[in-house]
């Protein structure tokens, strides 16, 4: 038998991650669905790794220069998302407070 194509391993990782995502997201409390969206938005900007590679590429040749330019722009856009996404999530999460314990115990229920 031949060795397994690395693409198959990647597919396996992907499929398993979909399942992990499925179960993890169902356990997110509905009260935090907005922060969930903003944080998933921030982490999907991990696409910045692709932009970084392109931006760092040696700009030899026209195609490479073009790719480099795209990469730099990509880094910029993804940075907006990463900083904006995580910070706005942090700002939101900081607002979620529990009930302060009643100042006067024995408050009628």
């Amino acid at each position, binding site marked *: 038998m031949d060795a397994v194509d690395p693409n198959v391993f990647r597919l396996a990782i992907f499929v398993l991650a979909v399942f992990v995502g499925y179960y993890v997201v169902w356990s997110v409390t509905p009260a935090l669905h907005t922060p969930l969206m903003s944080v998933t938005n921030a982490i999907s900007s991990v696409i910045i790794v692709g932009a970084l590679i392109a931006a760092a590429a040696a700009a030899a040749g026209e195609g490479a220069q073009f790719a480099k330019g795209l990469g730099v722009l*990509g880094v910029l856009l993804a940075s907006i998302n990463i900083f904006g996404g995580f910070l706005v999530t942090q700002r939101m999460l900081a607002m979620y407070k529990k009930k302060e314990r009643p100042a006067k115990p024995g408050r009628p229920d």
Partner: protein
Amino acid sequence: MSADFAALLYLVSGILFIMALRGLSSPETSRQGNYLGMAGMAVAVGTTLWVVELNGLAILLILGAVIVGGGIGAVIARRIAMTDMPQLVAGFHSLVGLTAVLVAAAALYEPKAFGISAPDGGLKALSLVELAIGVAIGAITFSGSVVAFMKLQGLMSGAPIVFKGQHWLNLGLGVAAAVFIVFLTASGGDNKTAFWIITVIALVLGVLLIIPIGGADMPVVVSMLNSYSGWAAAALGFTLENTALLITGALVGSSGAILSYIMCKGMNRSFISVILGGFGADAASAGAHGQVDRAVKLGSAEDAAFIMKNAGKVIIVPGYGMAVAQAQHALKEMADTLKAEGVDISYAIHPVAGRMPGHMNVLLAEAQAPYDEVFELEDINAEFATADVAFVIGANDVTNPAAEDDPTSPIYGMPVLQVWKARTVMFVKRSMGSGYAGIENPLFFRDNTLMLLGDAKKMTESIVKSLD
């Protein structure tokens, strides 16, 4: 650093992202979760910068881009009003989509840099297919999110735009994109024109997919675009052979899909019918049931204050109108004043209240309403029967009993908050107009309903004044 070690670090980053989402299972662990997410991002970026060969110019460019982009992002995050979260998220989705397009193009023009070039210097067929799918989803996410942003921001009417043959046009464009993916692949990546044609088709498709969807369905749209941005990242994760991207894309993709499902369920509509759109346009006719002339009981702030002050239990039902009027702080003040009078206060949130999942919860949190007083529909619906007052502020359709007892109603079957079981129902509304779905709410005409017409914020403020 070896490629194997880098791959392991990307895996660590992916796991940190999983932990970040896991943290959101409760507000207590959520803040820590967000930090884990940041750590995951730092690991991914750090690893990449370590792996690539950086020269002075590259460092300068990258640093500049991160500082400018990060600065813009940080300022937006600080300044944005919580009521504007839906459009902010839509705007951010568009950036993920656009970045995906840029990265895909860069990979096509310079595969060598990504270490994914075939022996002849071009791209492998499989990589090209993945790349083309990535750019297509990315472009759809981008233009679709821009449209969603404009609708939410009010730059464009929220009304659905439908025309004859729309779905056939979309289907045709989808097929055309697939054909050009074949061309691109067959050319071994040399046919750059095919790549850009795919991009343009996808951009048009993104617009066409979102314009027929009405304002009330925006929670589904925002979640759906969230999902797309994830799938775009995952597709590029395959192209770039990067585990962090693969895992993250899968997480975000399934997260958005689940949220879309929850939103659809909250409206008792199938995902397909939301996508096909047009809701809210034809529903207007359903409102013309000839109930226009029926008598309603109009109340004043003083009446409302008097009734609530003497109530034992008040359940507050916030809706989009509260967000529009920015009434959450006044509402919290009213709740505090009532609590001081010994009234039991809780909040009832319908899954699709507002313009995005969890929208109301964030606004209440902003106003510092404790989250353990805020309940989801299934947890609080039984409580209305024991409540003295249901205080509905800026919500309408989600309280409409027609959803339970009128099979001819367009919203029949949708889960609703059973506010009518409370002894008195108060509606704070701007006018007697029907809700977003254009459906008359029979509750307005009941004897135990008190209509408080006016701006939600001003009305709540005058109630607070009358309570003193």
